[in-house]
């Protein structure tokens, strides 16, 4: 016997039925997702495709009416045979490697110490996290004063501990010291970020695991290497991923501190890219440069995410 509801539904004219039913689930889902997809296409995908296209031309953004010529791979060829660009890549590598190494070591140590229960723990955590909350422009200015040869505290501290006269050296003006000066400032500013992520990892380890290890008479050293480090590793790797991507495109802090000098010793790739794009107005050339940096970061992030997933699966 047919269901009376089905019979009634079938008998309803299509025009009325559509009004009663409203939108299908699929249509509602698309209505929710469409604005995001549109924004993603407009803000990320379209500029990327446009930049790839520009990288094969001699387009200059300050001459919009000039004839745009297709130059093929010439922009890429010029960048990848330029010793000055090679030098900026080395400066970027120095900054990237040392900031990550120092931030991971100090951040993890601080997290490990803060994780112990003691009086004033919360206050200390807040104080340590403060540098991360400051604007890079403020931090840049602040450290420029600290590094000042005549009035800077850093130079006086060096004089106090080593006896080297404070006014005899300039951290930001020396070819050998300037690359380390920017590493110190970035480490001071962003170690708390790594510490917070490691702290979240340390606090996610249940106490009963350590209790079981103590019952089995595992030494604190063994507990640290076989339990603490492997369980915090995914968090640590996330922190390295975030800091790596962020420092690869570091701009504001270094511009405030050294402006890329002395000479080109602290000229990071992002600063050079900005100069090419908005000071020399070589838009096609700088687009090719941006694509090279993008492919590098994208490739690194891909293998890193794969490694992170493997660690999480363990």
């Amino acid at each position, binding site marked *: 016997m047919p269901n009376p509801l089905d019979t009634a539904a079938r008998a309803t004219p299509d025009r009325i039925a559509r009004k009663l039913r409203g939108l299908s689930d699929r249509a509602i889902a698309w209505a929710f997702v469409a604005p995001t997809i549109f924004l993603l296409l407009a803000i990320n995908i379209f500029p990327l495709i446009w930049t790839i296209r520009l990288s094969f031309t001699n387009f200059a953004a300050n001459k919009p009416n000039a004839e745009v010529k297709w130059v093929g791979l010439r922009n890429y060829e010029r960048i990848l*045979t330029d010793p000055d660009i090679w030098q900026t890549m080395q400066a970027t*590598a120095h900054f990237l490697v040392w900031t990550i190494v120092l931030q991971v070591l100090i951040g993890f140590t601080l997290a490990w110490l803060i994780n112990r229960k003691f009086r004033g723990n919360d206050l200390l955590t807040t104080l340590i996290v403060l540098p991360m909350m400051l604007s890079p422009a403020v931090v840049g200015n602040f450290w420029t004063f600290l590094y000042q040869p005549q009035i800077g505290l850093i130079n006086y501290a060096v004089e106090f501990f080593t006896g080297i006269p404070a006014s005899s050296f300039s951290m930001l003006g020396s070819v050998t010291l300037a690359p380390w000066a920017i590493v110190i400032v970035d480490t001071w500013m962003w170690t708390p970020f790594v510490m917070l992520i490691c702290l979240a990892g340390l606090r996610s380890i249940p106490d009963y695991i350590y209790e079981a290890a103590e019952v089995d008479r595992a030494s604190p050293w063994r507990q640290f290497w076989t339990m603490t480090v492997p369980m915090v590793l995914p968090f640590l790797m996330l922190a390295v991923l975030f800091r790596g991507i962020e420092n690869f495109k570091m701009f504001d802090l270094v511009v405030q501190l050294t402006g890329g000098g002395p000479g080109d010793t602290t000229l990071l790739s992002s600063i050079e890219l900005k100069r090419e794009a908005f000071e020399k107005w070589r838009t096609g050339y700088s687009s090719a440069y941006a694509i090279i940096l993008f*492919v590098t970061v994208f490739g690194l992030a891909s293998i890193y995410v794969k490694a992170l997933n493997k660690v999480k699966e363990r």
Partner: protein
Amino acid sequence: MTAFISGLLSFRRGPWEMLATILIALGVVMLMQPFALWAFTWSFVVTLTGTVMFIITSHFPE
């Protein structure tokens, strides 16, 4: 080593992803090393090959 090569020949994800990963890492090292300009010149081609290979091979069966 034989397993790695037979994995490559049978289009399994693991060995191909490993090869792509090695290419990307090699490309980045070539880009940032301070020793040879020719390595810097060829770094982008190596990184790009590795990255495209990684995107394709991540869709291969396990």
